[in-house]
């Protein structure tokens, strides 16, 4: 789906089926009148948001959406750069640079970013994925011009101070230990990407290898910054309580002064089609086993994405899914199971996983998963399951649009990965059009035995 990639550093890996945390705080936003039309009939689902899109002469893409629910603004600046733009030896550079974006620029130097955001009642954060890097602020609407001034400063004149870099490298090393080295599920995910991709840069982790983190220097990061942090490589999305005309003028005034620069041609190594099954096993001091069956999937924009998304919902989304019923409910061998299709810009991953109960091996679960995938290839899904999956997708899309921040994210990710935010709306029709035949066809195309990778995490045998 065109939601924020499952591999973004910082987002939850997946919704485990028996997750215990409720989210009673997610809800509809007071959207502009007419924000959503035609929902009275389930078969006539249309979303439209009155977005104003324009491109500055320097190539900056801008999306503006008024939303007067509360006197706030959500301000998103995303760059088309991620870990796929790195090379061996400097893995994690895009993420490291994301951290350095808070360490001072020409006008707002040193720790000014943290301090000024705080003094002005603004919260902020950032994230990095395989394909893009995003920065965002949630601010009182009266602070819009200030935030713009700050974002322009660090888009054009970032300082990369070697001392600040040395200290921030330690922070990132702690982040890596926390996300990966001291977190078995993080290790498993890293192993999965390295198993499914052998050639394409998706094979290395977004956060980078520890030895590479230790070796970054200011020069390398500066080159990375100069190359990719340019207006013609960025998307600016502003959603909230403002007048479009006024903000358009502000954007022209502040960002208009920046120069575009030619971007390097991007020739990412193409991942060859997988011909034989891959296996990878990780043995750690854990209480129980986990497993992932993963396949190369369609890239973003491929028409197969929609059917494969729905197929993943039918297999593993929620307690009514096929895998939950068999592995968690009937056999009672797993604590949770999931399936997802994640289409990144150059390739995708279709993955099915289960987390076992302690003392349970993985073979029985693997057999069930193989069987369910086989069924997806050999039988049509029922009309009822298809409808359910479509309703779930629709509802997920609506649920993600309840806040200003949610709208800004959805617009930004669609603009970045498909080239137009409108895919957010047109996708609804594409999901609606998927048939049971389509799901069977994509299952046939992507989930053959020789196309799969089996990645397992097993408890070490304890000697004492």
């Amino acid at each position, binding site marked *: 789906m065109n939601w924020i990639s499952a591999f973004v550093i910082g987002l939850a890996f997946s919704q485990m089926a028996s997750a215990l945390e409720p989210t009673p705080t997610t809800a509809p936003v007071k959207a502009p009148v007419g924000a959503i039309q035609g929902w009275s009939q389930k078969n006539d689902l249309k979303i439209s948001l009155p977005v104003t899109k324009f491109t500055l002469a320097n190539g900056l893409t801008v999306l503006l959406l008024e939303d007067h629910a509360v006197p706030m603004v959500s301000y998103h600046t995303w760059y088309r750069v991620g870990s796929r733009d790195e090379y061996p030896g400097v893995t994690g550079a895009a993420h490291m640079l994301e951290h350095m974006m808070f360490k001072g620029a020409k006008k707002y130097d040193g720790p000014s970013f943290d301090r000024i955001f705080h003094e002005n009642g603004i919260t902020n954060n950032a994230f990095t994925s395989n394909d893009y890097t995003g920065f965002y602020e949630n601010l009182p609407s009266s602070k819009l011009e200030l935030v713009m001034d700050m974002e322009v400063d660090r888009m054009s004149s970032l300082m990369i101070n070697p001392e600040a870099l040395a200290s921030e490298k330690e922070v990132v090393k702690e982040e890596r230990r926390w996300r990966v080295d001291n977190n078995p599920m993080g290790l498993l995910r890293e192993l999965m990407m390295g198993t499914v991709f052998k050639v394409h840069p998706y094979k290395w982790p977004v956060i980078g290898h520890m030895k590479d983190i230790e070796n970054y220097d200011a020069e390398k990061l500066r080159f990375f910054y100069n190359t990719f942090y340019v207006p013609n490589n960025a998307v600016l999305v502003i959603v909230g309580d403002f007048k479009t005309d006024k903000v358009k003028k502000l954007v022209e005034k502040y960002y208009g002064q920046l120069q575009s620069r030619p971007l390097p041609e991007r020739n990412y190594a193409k991942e060859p089609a997988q011909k034989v099954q891959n296996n990878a096993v990780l043995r750690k001091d854990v209480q129980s086993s986990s497993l992932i069956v993963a396949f190369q999937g369609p890239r973003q924009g491929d028409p197969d994405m929609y059917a494969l998304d729905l197929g993943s919902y039918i297999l593993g989304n929620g*307690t009514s899914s096929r895998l939950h019923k068999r592995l968690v409910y009937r056999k009672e061998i797993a604590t949770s199971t999931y399936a997802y299709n994640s289409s990144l810009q150059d390739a995708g991953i279709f993955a099915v996983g289960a987390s076992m109960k302690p003392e349970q091996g993985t073979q029985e679960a693997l057999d069930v998963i193989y069987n369910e995938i086989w069924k997806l290839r050999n039988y049509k899904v029922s009309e009822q399951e298809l409808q359910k999956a479509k309703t779930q997708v629709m509802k997920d899309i609506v649920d993600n649009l309840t806040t200003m921040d949610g709208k800004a994210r959805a617009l930004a990710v669609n603009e970045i990965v498909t080239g137009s935010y409108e895919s957010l709306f047109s996708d609804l029709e594409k999901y609606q059009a998927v048939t049971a035949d389509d799901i069977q066809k994509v299952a046939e195309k992507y989930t053959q035995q020789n196309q799969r990778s089996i990645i397992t995490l097993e408890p070490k045998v304890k000697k004492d």
Partner: protein
Amino acid sequence: MKNISSVLALSVLCSVMVACSSSSKNVKTPSVPGYVTKSSGSFSLHPYKEVTLENGLKIIFIRDTSLPRISLTLMVRTGSMQEAEGKFGLNAMTAYLLEHGTQSRSATVLADYFGQLGTSLDISPGADVTTVYGDSLSTSSAQLLEVLSDVVMSPAFKESEISRVRSQMIAGLQKKKDNPSAFAEDKINEFVFGEHPYGRDTQGTVESLKKVSKQDIIKHYLTFYRPNNSSMAVVGNFDSDFEQNVSAVFGKWTKRSIPETVVSAPPVNDKLQVKLIVKKGLQQAQVRISTLGIARSSEDFLKLRLSNEVLGGSFASRLNQKIRSEQGLTYSIYSSFDVRKERGSFDISTFTKNETAGKMVAEVLKTVEQYVTEGAKENEISAARSQLVGQFPRAIETADRLAYNMLALDFYGIPYDYLTQFNENVESISLKDANLSMAKNIDLKRFKILVYGDQQIISQFEKYNPEVVRIK
């Protein structure tokens, strides 16, 4: 991601939340008879209506027609606080079992039903309250009401489902060790609260879950899952007929008198205590520093929230600047007051590599001591005020968030005016009051420190004479 603390800060805002005032100045919902609009200056909340049924169930209705969806939240005033000795986990088990079958629907039929609505049920058993949340597209509102009321009012508690849920919960507890952060969280709560229910995992223990019987579950349900012990929020795109249906359906729920809850007091320590939990091979040490804090009803609540904002509430906080930005000792550090119905805790949460665990603790204590002794500076408190006031609208940005906050306020016995008066109240807290509140409530001699890491942490804490627990 640069850091997790801002994400956490928001969730604190919205759960403990009950922390903000409002501003939906452009709410366009037409006025509906019976609905109240609360305003403060240029701000107003979504119009709402409150109804109390004859059986004691309080229902808050908030209409929001901007999206074609509807949500129902039931908050039951029971949790691990109401569990008898040795039956820990009873409430969570009871709560999870609600969706494992009713008198007329099996567990799988229920799962399919919710799936078909495009949704799933969120059941969240806590210490003070348990919430049940469901939502759907508004075209399915009648079905959602029907199935959610069935789940809440007619659970079956079949023996086979009890053993299934028990086994799931036990597996979950066993696997917790693989999640160092969650494990450290449990252990510090146990350390600070002792025998008090806030000290234990709401999921119980492996041993206690085995002792929970079907009779226990039925008794717990019949005693506490009652309309006069609950409140409810109905939010979204609905009409007057739907309101009447909600009242009619839940009006059939029978009330009972609710017994008083008596629990043991948390332990009091008069000198700093350190506990090390050591597991060979861990790549990083989880550090928790806590002490008893305040109840939500405390008059110091807002002052402490403001003061804590300076100490450990954001990227710009003293802890984050000193420990993360200046020394690179961690990726995340924050402090917070976990306020509850009874006295909660003040918590500092962070992690670092095993080699620097001792240094981290020393630096944190130094920073906190200086802050508590000398207090914040005027510019720091002023920034903190801007932060609380500036971010407040997000707490009521959606009707669901507003509803949840109203349920929480109602539970704590705090008037809804809290929301409309929030900005004014925050602005009126002086530097002196903020500093006094911190000095009065935080005493480093009463801190408890828990570190969960590799064995190499032990030698770094010798001077604290720590209790060392080794696990496999």
